[in-house]
């Protein structure tokens, strides 16, 4: 939550898997952890946060899903965020970030 509220990817990537699936407004790619961090950093730089709210969290098998709504400075309409964490040895590990414009 802190990551999206303040535009700080560091909070999101602690910890993160070696390879992360990132989909930003339809453009999807698999990145290394290091690269994914900078991709998200760049996204926040160009889409500075205005507000973020967590709509729902849910567990499915060994995954934790966090869905939210993100308002940023580049547009009036919000974007929708889905972040997936998989269960690690001691904590949840980031595996996937999706940011889409589709409304529910």
């Amino acid at each position, binding site marked *: 939550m802190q990551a999206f509220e303040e535009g700080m990817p560091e909070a999101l990537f602690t910890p993160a898997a070696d390879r992360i699936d990132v989909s930003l407004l339809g453009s999807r790619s698999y990145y290394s952890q290091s690269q994914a961090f900078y991709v998200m950093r760049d996204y926040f730089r160009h889409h500075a946060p205005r507000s973020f709210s967590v709509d729902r969290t*849910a567990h499915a*098998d060994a995954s934790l899903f966090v869905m939210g709504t993100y308002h940023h400075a580049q547009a009036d309409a919000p974007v*929708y965020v889905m972040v997936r964490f998989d269960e690690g040895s001691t904590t949840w590990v980031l595996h996937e970030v999706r940011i889409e414009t589709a409304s529910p």
Partner: protein
Amino acid sequence: MPIFSSRSLLYWIVAGILGSSAIVLVGMQERLTSSEVAGRDTEQIAEVRTAVSTQYQALRTDLITRAEMLARDSTIIQSLDALRPGDRPRRLVDHLAQLNVHPRRAVEVYAPTPRLLGWTGFSMPLDQAPDQEAFLQDTQVAVARRGDVQTALVAWAPVRLDGRAIGAVRVMQQVYVDPPVQNRFIQAYRLSAEWGAPLPLPISITWEPPRTLADSATTLLLNDLHGAPLAHVRVVRPQPEQLLRMERERIGNVQGAAVGLLLVWLLGGLAYRFYHAWRRACRSDLRSLATATGWMFGVAVGIVMLRYSAIGLDLPARWMHAGSAAAPLFDPAHLASGIGRGLMRSIGDLLITGCLGALLGGGLFMLGLRYRLPVPWRDAWTHRYTLPLSRRWVVLGTTIASIVLVTLGLGSSLAVAHVVEHAVLDSTLNFFARTGLLPNLLVFTVFSSLALLLAGLFASLVALWWIATRLVLLAWPAAYPPTILGLITLGSGGLAAVLLIIGFHPADAVAPTVSILLFLGAGGVAFVGRTWPHNGRSQLTIQRLLPAAIILATALYALLYVGMDAQRRSRMAEAAQSFAEGRNPRLLFALQQIVEGVRTDLDRWQTPSITADSLDAIATDALRGSLLTSLSPYESRLVLLDSLGTPQAQYATPGVRPRRVQQMPEDERIFRRMQTLYTLRGGTEPVVTPLPDDIRRDLRSGSAVEYVGLQRLRGPGPLHWAMVRIEPRAGIVGSGSDIPRVFLPDGSYSDLYADLSLAVFTDGILRRSQGPDVGVGRLPDDVRSRTTQAAPVWTRTTDRGATYLTYYARSSDNRVVVARLPTIMPFDHLYYLFRITVAVLVLATLAYLVGALMRYRAGLLPAPRVRFRDKVLNAFLGVGVAAALAVGVLGVHVVEAEGDRGVESQLADALARIEEALALQARSGERIFRVVDRTDMNALAVRMGTDLDVYEDGLLTETSRPRLVRDGLVEPRLPMEVYQALHLENRRFTTARRSIGSFTYRVGYRALTDAEGRTRVVVAVPTLSEQEQLEEEQARTLAYLFGALLMLVVVVMGTASLVASAIAQPIAQLREGLEAVGEGRFARILPVTTRDEIGELVQTFNEMRAQLAQQRRKLAQQERELAWREMARQVAHEIKNPLTPMKLSIQHLKRAFQRRGEATANASGSTSPQDADDSQFAELFTRITDTLIDQINTLTRIANEFSSFARLPTRVLEPLDVNEVSREAVQLMREEAPSNAITANWHEAPLVVEADREELRRVCINLLKNALQAIPDDRTPNIHVATMKQAPTASHPQGCAELTVRDNGTGISTDERDKIFQPNFSTKTSGTGLGLAIAHKTITELEGSITFTTTEGVGTTFRIRLPLTQHES
């Protein structure tokens, strides 16, 4: 530079201004409040509105102008005027086919109906303009849409002839493209992003009139020509805090520029001071060296500060807006790594780091040049410098410094290797794609950046070697022998190397090995470079830079390969794990597309009263229109459910055509499970996942893994859910999905590795596989035993001659997952190396130009002397590189042309088979094109195993991939040039290049004609699915070609070096030989080592040397003789002068005494004792005077002979017979010799030679006299004279006359033989020693020879040879 000079004052003034500006800007930033920026949003909104309006007006005007210009085109007018119903005018088609339009523009020409007559570019459905009254009356502007996928702004212009409208032209400009997938091939496009990039506020453009005008200030209407809104632009009004942030950011941009300039300025000052200190530094002056070192340290700190300040201030990325040309360089989506806390967080940052690293390396190299030993090594060792410090501290300090330097060097090498490895691991770029001669710009930039870094590192290492060596020699104690130093160096180096290598896994030892080799290589260069003149400028030549570039590229490739290998292994493991879990990304993606497509179709067409037939049609069409169905080995099953989750309809593809099927018992249960998951995930995106394990276990045993997708429907009808399940048709071996790479996300393993094989073995038996055949049906026993451990197993296996890297991992107790990928072939390595070498060569070219400038400024260019070896080397290199380039360019064309021909051939074959299949279904006399109407083309496509499209009158009527058409990825009409070829030129077959985004593929078209030969139907086969394989094959051929070219260049370089040395070395030897000859040293003979012209030249030189030596000896002998003659002349002259008066005086005295004696005897008439004494005296007197006169005569004769030896020859040459002359001499000597002492034998014919008669006779007489004198008294003299003719020789083509004088004298002793012809040598006490010298001189001057053979105690034979004249012969 003095501190307070005018120049330094200016420097500090500028620095002060920049610093003050930065501080002021920081203050401004901090003090900026919301109240100060209030109102600026209104200004910015107005600015944005104006800018967008201007852009829109310009675009609209451009479209209208273009449309009206085409509407006035005479070809179009005439074509429309000549239009017949149902026809497409050929001239119009030809004209449009030749039009060159931008990829985002399209042109169409319509008949008034409106009926589309001709086109070029993309297609769009008709907009509302034809429905307007003004259609064909005035120019119109409208918006055309293809669903939510594409939008275009269009301009219509009526075509008029004599005042009546005969047609219309439509010009379209794409303004919005939203593809279903985005990757490196396919990108979304929004005109709003293009216009909004440079604007201060973000905008969004909706290409339809606004429903309401909520905020007119932030809404701008884009109108048509009549003022009706076509679209509206929303300017995002910034919130106050955002406004403040934006304003602060704007100030920050300026501040960043000020700080950046300040840092660059300060660094420039430091560099300037270093440069001056460096120029003043002397290699033997430690104080100046220390000063230069200090400034270099300052420069290094400055560079580091500059770099990290730029990172902290986000420079220069903060100045890049999204649309700028350099923006992709700073996009982390291509490359971003956290190494160095931002040093390579984008390609642009990596480039900046590389440039600064090269700069630092260059500075250290310059410093190191000054640290080179000022004297040769041995002298440096014996004359080491001392410092006025305690030796113990000096030793300690310099030793520590040296160790630190060496450690720093090794550590830097390893760090750079780590950077290079992560440039691959933290990037989505495909560095090792085989897609042409040169890498793309981004990859090229990365290669160049890494090469700069590596070059800077190498230069630094060389400098470190020089500095460390100097420091050690500075203070190594004199008492310690150098051997210890050598042992310590070798020992520590070896230990470090061993630790580094064994500390890494063998597979990871490449990077440290390369690092160590770089370090040691730098040491070698440092050793060689210790004597470079001109501070190494002379090394920046082609002969040095070209091999250096290739070596640098090789080192870089080795390090890149480490990263690539790690990446491959990581992705193989990831793919294996995904496959084991059932996560096939291609299938998951395809399934996602199916459920989304089903939702789109049903949302659009479903109504509350929808009939079953309609539903069937919609559902089967949606199922068939997917990317997956009909061509894949997977069976799809669609289940439609109501709001309660009760299945209402089921459709499947058990065969080739989807149809309604019965419900399966597990449908509802699966739905419940998926519904839960859907809800958990937010309910916005379809849920696509492998079938949950617990459900699969409950199903029929041995079932293959299934995939399930679920999506909620939004339409008003009774159906609320769509669920799709897919499973492989064959239970054991799956042949892999045929989803082309163009539709897959970047970076996924299936995107990168088309030839990746995946398989799951249960209890050692193959159960499931994907991709190319994995090669075995059972796991090898040794692998099974090794995979019992937790760690995965990596092996290299060989299958049918190909080598594979294979990964085995245990995914459960009895399951082993396998991933296999072909290893890289040797020629692939060469191809990759070639691409890297090209990037490094560009840098080498820059270095060469810089070096040329430096040499020019130093007066070394133009070079006063160019070595012949360098000329030969340059010529070879030029020819070799030109040949490689020519072959490369030609080879690319040939390979591509052959590839195209091969593809065309394949397409032609495929279309021929399709036509044959259609022909088999034709009735008697029925044309094939009519069969198409009643043929299930989808089934035909499945049977043929290929995609298939059908066109009628240029428009797509059937396709095996309708989804692609619906998503706007494939055009629903023939390209104009294809229409022209098949319909107008009546060709039967043609091909064309099509593209989806930037992904290009080929399509083959076959015309099916009617009885008149006119094309009625066109069948097309695209290579969409096969394109990967085609490109792979072509790329492999190119890889082999360029690998061979790289080897050719290396071989040419090596051969050039050898040949140049082989040519230059003998020339150098010749030069040395000539120098030796010039210095009078004739002893050295050059070895003849070759059998060519060079060898002949050397041999000729040796002969010349021998002749010169002989000539020199002759000259010396002549000079000696000349000296003797001169001396003899002088002596003779001096002696003869007093001899004559002496003789005369004595004769006079004798006569006077005789006269006196006679007078006395006559006067006394008697003899007395006094008379007896007088008589004795008279007798004595007479005897003495006689003796004196004899001796005077002898002296006179000797003097005369000296004169005759000394005088210049005044011979008179004439042809004379040797027989005659020698006969005369014999007759003369017979008078002096005992009788019969001399015998003779004359040649029967005259022996005519060119000589002086008197001289020759004297020579003969001299020989005869010597012969007589050589015979002892107790021997009967026997002297034989003979003449004969000698046969012609090469030196005497006429032959020679030979005169021999043989005696039976005492012979000549061994130690006298060498002196026999010397002027002052004689064996006789009374001899002058000149006779034989005169004879030798005479005969030699007559070009003859005089030799002798002798036997002591037996006798001697003298032999004279004189060349016969032409006269004789």
